[in-house]
């Protein structure tokens, strides 16, 4: 267990000393500032535009961190051969992998805190109050980042950085879009039944959409932006279920990555 903590702390140190993190954070904060202008130009409520846009940027910022840092976390160790010395110590390979992941999760927590503080500042500068429910949105964004980072780590445990980045991005897109696509297919099905002569979509389209929906983590579950922005009620136990979804997928992906990783040769 101690080994896990040492590796996590080292991974945290590695990431916070990485310039790319600050570049990403800089762009995220720049976009937050841009949301003030966007709010002023918009015909909708300025407060809602600022909040909605900033929360969206937070989610994309998390994706960028997962891709640019998460994917490189293991690959850099392999390419720079630092892994040879580390794995020659009495540590299990899964400890190495999980330790690296936990280090990055600590960075994610720090990022979320910085981004939430920036959102508070943007709202304050624009003369709007900070709705405490925004903290719930930040919490859910953290879980989205944690899961997508686990996805990135999973792919990078057996493939190249470019392929891992593309696959992680594909999972992000497919996961966010699959729910909407299924809804669309359902609507199409009903419409086809009502229009004489209309041909229904082939069965494999719906089957593929359903498979993608259930084979991938549902990142849309962590998207409570519209609920928070429009002050809608959250269903009972929503946070518990979404947290369990995040934990479940993270544990599953880390377990799978560990199995792959433990079978690898380090030439």
């Amino acid at each position, binding site marked *: 267990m*101690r*080994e896990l903590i*040492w*590796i996590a702390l*080292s991974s945290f*140190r*590695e990431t916070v*000393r*990485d310039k790319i993190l600050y570049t990403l954070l800089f762009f995220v904060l720049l976009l937050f500032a841009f949301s003030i202008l966007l709010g002023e130009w918009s015909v909708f409520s300025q407060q809602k535009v600022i909040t909605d846009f900033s929360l969206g940027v937070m989610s994309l910022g998390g994706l960028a961190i997962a891709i640019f840092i998460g994917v490189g976390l293991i690959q850099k160790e392999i390419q*720079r*051969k*630092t892994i*040879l*010395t*580390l*794995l*020659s*110590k*009495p*540590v*299990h390979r899964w400890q190495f992998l999980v330790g690296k992941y936990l280090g990055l999760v600590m960075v994610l927590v720090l990022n979320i805190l910085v981004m939430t503080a920036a959102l508070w500042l943007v709202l304050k500068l624009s003369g709007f109050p900070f709705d405490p429910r925004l903290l719930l949105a930040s919490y859910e964004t953290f879980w989205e980042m944690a899961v997508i980072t686990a996805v990135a780590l999973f792919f990078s445990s057996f493939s190249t950085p470019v392929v891992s980045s593309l696959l992680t991005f594909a999972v992000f897109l497919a996961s966010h879009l699959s729910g909407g696509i299924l809804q669309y297919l359902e609507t199409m099905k009903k419409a086809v039944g009502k229009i004489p002569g209309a041909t229904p979509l082939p069965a494999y389209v719906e089957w593929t959409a359903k498979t993608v929906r259930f084979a991938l983590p549902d990142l849309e579950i962590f998207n409570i932006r519209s609920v928070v922005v429009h002050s809608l009620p959250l269903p009972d136990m929503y946070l518990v279920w979404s947290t369990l979804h995040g934990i479940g997928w993270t544990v599953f992906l880390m377990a799978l990555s560990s199995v792959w990783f433990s*079978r690898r*040769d*380090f*030439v």
Partner: protein
Amino acid sequence: MNLVEIQNFSKVYRLGIEHGLKKVEAVKSISLTVPEGALYGFIGPNGAGKTTTIKTLMGLLRPTSGTVLLMGKNPLDPASRVQVGFQPEQPYFYDYLTGQELLSFYGRLSGVRGQDLSKSIEEACDLCKVDPSWLTRRLRTYSKGMSQRLGLAQAVLHKPKLLILDEPMSGLDPMGRRDVRLAMLELHKAGTTIFYSSHVLSDVEEVCTHAAMVVRGTLRREGLLSEILNNPDDPEHRQKLEDILAREVELA
């Protein structure tokens, strides 16, 4: 007791798609043992299979066939590495860390903690001629020779029973080579068993008690160095490792 036991070990690499998924047999059924107390030189030309064997011993590669035991255990079991120190060929380190941070990190992973850690770091640096002033510098500013010495320091700081070094003299100037050789002799004198690969055959002749010679993945000679150097079956009575190795390369 044998700290390393290798029986009929073979390793086959599968090349990538760009090479038509061809298979290459890097090590062909080699067997050797490293007894406790030995200073064991593992020699052979480039591409002979030395690093593959060492990486397999450290659990970084899986054997294709045969048995490999480190401290009597499967090298894939982390428990086998508790009393083992390892320095890879041309050690690469985290360039964002300072020397002190790196040694503390590796020391903790090797089970050295608390006050023992600073004492162990001090002793290891002293032994490997790592200047204390280097320790506050980030590793990206280290020269190759400094990295090599730090590599040896991280391998010895938990006072392992067995030290496995892959080309520890590589990239060092003559003074550096001398320092590493002296450090190895001091450790050996203190009871550490050392298994190391090297191209510097004169060093092996000078310091080793045992040696193994591999050529193109096959083991050509193994055992006490004195027996290898005084082989009664050799009609030409070669008494230099360089000559013996050259002959084995010709025969292989």
